[in-house]
């Protein structure tokens, strides 16, 4: 059983962090960040051509991170692979013992760095969940037998700050039916959003990791509010960032405060930290939030 699954099912507050594969073949920075994450998180979540930008694959990066002693979460989108390639990717993850898979539809190619590319979307995120569930039963989507079935712990995404939210919840229920056991939310900043979301989803059979994005500046917050779907940084936080002398420190403090409050009020089952290029800040945020995984604390 995957460590992430064990932790979530045992009711421990789970910690995952996002890591982006490099653009190019130099993985030294990735390995350095991996060392910083060691003993601090339950899983590292590796993006799959995030924002439709070409780079090293999620699978290869997950394999490297596993070698570094981390528990990888493979992100898999429907944008670039048809069902043959998607199932092949899942089986390959199974061969490498990568069990956690986060299934996503994926940003459209036109928003990425190769807008000329043909978008695939043979399977949406629900189709990928169905494919993974089928493989776990020892068969492929066409009903052919596998010589050995992979084991997965499946997850998906949800956006609590979405209008109309009802349709997100309807889709979330479908994702659970298709095999999702855990959800990672889009970055949240307002505790009230998570209070409402927890209330709406309290009866659903799944674990929820709240998305945490440490702010780097007031400008970044404003940019995200304007350009990133599902992000809503409240004005009072933008004001705090604007007035702070040490912006980086303030951003970390805000993230840590939110994590603590979410944990105290039991508004999620864990957090997923998206440091967006500043992965070295993840341990600092966790220190500030006073969070250590029990496996590391007891080691």
């Amino acid at each position, binding site marked *: 059983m995957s460590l992430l699954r064990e932790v979530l099912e045992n009711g421990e507050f789970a910690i995952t962090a996002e890591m982006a594969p490099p653009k190019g073949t130099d993985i030294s920075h990735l390995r350095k960040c991996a060392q910083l994450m060691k003993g601090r998180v339950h899983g590292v979540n590796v993006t799959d051509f995030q924002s439709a930008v070409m780079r090293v694959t999620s699978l290869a990066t997950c394999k490297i991170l596993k070698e570094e002693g981390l528990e990888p979460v493979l992100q898999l989108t429907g944008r670039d692979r048809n069902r043959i390639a998607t199932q092949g990717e899942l089986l390959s993850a199974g061969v490498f013992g990568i069990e956690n898979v986060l299934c996503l539809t994926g940003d459209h190619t036109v*928003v990425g760095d190769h807008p000329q590319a043909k978008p695939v*979307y043979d399977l949406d*995120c629900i189709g990928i969940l*169905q494919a993974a569930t089928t493989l776990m039963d020892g068969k492929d*989507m066409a009903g052919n037998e596998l010589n050995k079935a992979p084991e997965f712990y499946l997850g998906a995404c949800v*956006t609590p700050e979405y209008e109309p939210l009802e*349709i*997100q919840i309807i889709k979330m229920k*479908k994702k659970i039916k298709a095999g999702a056991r855990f959800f990672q939310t889009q970055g949240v900043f307002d505790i009230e959003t998570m209070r409402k979301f927890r209330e709406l989803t309290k009866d659903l059979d799944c674990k929820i990791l709240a998305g945490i994005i440490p702010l780097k500046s007031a400008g970044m917050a404003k940019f995200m509010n304007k350009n990133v779907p*599902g992000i809503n940084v409240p004005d009072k936080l933008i004001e705090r960032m604007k007035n702070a002398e040490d912006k980086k420190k303030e951003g970390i403090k805000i993230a840590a405060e939110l994590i603590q409050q979410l944990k105290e009020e039991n508004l999620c089952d864990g957090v997923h930290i998206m440091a967006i290029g500043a992965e070295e800040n993840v341990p600092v945020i966790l220190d500030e939030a006073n969070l250590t995984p029990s496996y590391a604390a007891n080691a």
Partner: protein
Amino acid sequence: MIISEQKPIEEILESIKDCKKVVITGCSLCATTCKSGGEEEILKLKEILEEQGKEVLGYKVLDPACNYLKVRKDMKKLKSELKEADALISLSCGDGTQTVAKVVKVPVYPGTNTLFIGEIERVGKFEEACRACGDCQLAWTGGICPITKCPKSLINGPCGGAMDGKCEVNSDNDCAWVMIYEKLKEMDKLENLEEVKPPTDYQKWVHPSKVSIR
């Protein structure tokens, strides 16, 4: 309706740069309605070509350009012009241009780009409405096509990319799934969204397709 638009004149001129004597065809139906290949557009193109020193031997608005037997019959009326011509410019959808090319021996050059199957919202305004997927889903989606109106052709609900109900691919467009949600809510049929739809069967999208009802 098949929506098409005229190619930039530079591209048309480039494609016939080595030709002197030209015949032009258009179409009485879609291309006339979307003003890419009716009589008016043919005459305009004729004028430009003549200004460029080309000789336009004749023209015809085919009725319609996609009907093989009718095109074959109509083109006979241009027999002598076609014998002399070294280029035919077709102002119709890609289907019509191929039908014309099947019928004549002279090289055929498209004068339009075919864009989509769409609705005439009002005069001069067209919106893509159907992708001819071969497996119509409109029964449960409130009459709004997610295959066409969602750029990802999602069948199980929205991605997380919409902002203020607008699509991540083009913020001028409403998110198809938000529209479907609103419509079904109004119809008190939100339960239509609850069923997990299996992945699309793309065997139905294998091209080229043929149908015979004889």
